[in-house]
């Protein structure tokens, strides 16, 4: 491994990480404008964030919409994924393309489409409209994650259950479902995040009543006034950070405590 490659690597990692990290100290700054270095540190804007209904309401909307989106997406995608992974039928490759289509169409195109269509149906600017739109957009990623899991599923286990006298329903409930559970959880998580982060369609169709967090953030950033944006940005970043590094940290703690107790325990 030569030296220049290493230096380039370190620089690229810095380029990827530094912009994210810088938001955290800025969110603790006392200055209302984005001033570097911050003149002082406090938690004032965090307090402000958690007391301001104009920020809490969009956050709540986003959570409700993302949850509804997850349930609806899973109800539709799980059976369809079984059909596509486990069955051979006429038109299968077409069905496959159909399920991936929402990923291929730029969101701005769908934003016009939904704005117009839901306007005709009278559900533009409502939570229902946003959920219905987000569900379409969540289909591809949920399908891809779930089908990758289902492809790795060893079907002899189901056949064994059937040969031992289990009905198809029992087999599904006691064999298929428990084995597939992690895959289902991960794909549901992807559906949730897809909706929670979706910005472009929400900007056009969520309006005031169903305003989602990304829409509120977009508007605030565009007006470039509210120091609270730094707070919510830091929080969103720290959630991802915690979700990724918590398992690692836990394992580290376990290993440390394991080492501390290992002399007294016999290894078998």
């Amino acid at each position, binding site marked *: 491994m030569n030296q220049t490659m290493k230096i380039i690597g370190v620089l690229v990692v810095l380029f990827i*990480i530094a*912009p994210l990290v810088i938001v955290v100290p800025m969110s603790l700054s006392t200055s209302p404008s*984005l001033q570097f270095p911050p003149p002082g540190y406090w938690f004032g804007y965090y307090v402000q964030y958690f007391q301001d209904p104009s920020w809490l309401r969009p956050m709540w909307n986003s959570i409700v919409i993302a949850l509804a989106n997850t349930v609806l997406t899973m*109800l539709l995608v799980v059976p369809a994924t079984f059909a596509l992974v486990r069955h051979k039928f006429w038109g299968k490759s077409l069905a496959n393309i159909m399920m991936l289509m929402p990923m291929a169409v730029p969101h*701005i*195109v769908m934003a016009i489409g939904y704005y*117009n269509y839901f306007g005709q149906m009278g559900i533009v600017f409502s939570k229902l409209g946003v959920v219905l739109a987000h569900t*379409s957009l969540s289909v591809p990623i949920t399908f891809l994650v779930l089908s990758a899991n289902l492809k790795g599923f060893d079907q002899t286990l189901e056949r064994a259950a059937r040969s031992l006298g289990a009905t198809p329903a029992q087999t599904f409930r006691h064999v298929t479902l428990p084995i597939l559970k992690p895959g289902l959880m991960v794909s549901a998580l992807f559906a949730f995040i897809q909706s929670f982060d979706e910005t472009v369609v929400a900007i056009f169709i969520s309006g005031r009543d169903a305003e989602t967090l990304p829409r509120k953030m977009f508007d605030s950033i565009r007006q470039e006034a509210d120091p609270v944006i730094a707070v919510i940005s830091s929080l969103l970043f720290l959630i991802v950070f915690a979700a990724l590094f918590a398992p690692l940290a836990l394992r580290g703690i376990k290993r440390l405590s394991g080492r501390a107790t290992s002399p007294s325990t016999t290894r078998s």
Partner: protein
Amino acid sequence: MTASIRDKQNLTPWLLLLPLAAYLLIFFFVPLAQVAIMSVTEPQPGLGNYERVLTSPLYRKVFINTFSTALLVTVCCLLVGYPLAYLMAHTTKKRAMLILMLITMSFWTSFLVRTYSWMVLLGRNGPVAWIFLQFGWDEPPQMLFTRFASTLAMVHILAPYMIMNIYSVMQKIDPSLVRSAESMGARGRSLFRHVYLPLTAPGIANGSVLVFVICLGFYVTPVLLGSPREQMAAGLIGRQIEEFLAFGPGSAMAIVLLVITLVILAIYHRRFGLDKLYG
């Protein structure tokens, strides 16, 4: 008896697929088709909107801007991503894991947060301006709301796609291929050009198509960080709707953008298969 079982089996996939297919028809394909219809009916029937979108200098400028930006972002992502992917594929497993986690962290952080972080960095009193100041540059150049800012932020946002695609290919390269090329006398640049680069080509293709296509339709980052005078296609479509309620020209432009995107993806799909793209 056997025939009925076979019939039942043949029906099963259709029944499983039906709810989703119906849903996508009603809540995806119909609204999409209506965009196409609006493009030839608003404000009056005919191809006037397309004529305007495809021939007027204003729209042409936006399309050229969109393409050149997407190309530039793709090339920059490649320049940034390839060396890092190489490093990850050739360092210790522990370090590769750590880098992968940091990239995943960026990948999972919302587009908006990443866009905002560039606003913080490049602002008039931000960290970059502060560094300029330390070097005695009193009046730092205007960085925010320029093409430079939006391009830089898009490279930052899309680089993880490129890195992950290239890394996943590099990881699978059989080291004995490289060793045998070496034993045949391939060295340095020629080893890279004739052996390593072709082996990583599928990853480069995957990453580039993905980055290019996302960039073509990018709305949020160019609108927030870019120059209002140098709009990209999605930004202009949004403005047509938001400010002028001009659904006709807006839809025509959306359809042009859609067709270009789909053509690129279709070519890609014929060669590699679309489901590999995002996997």
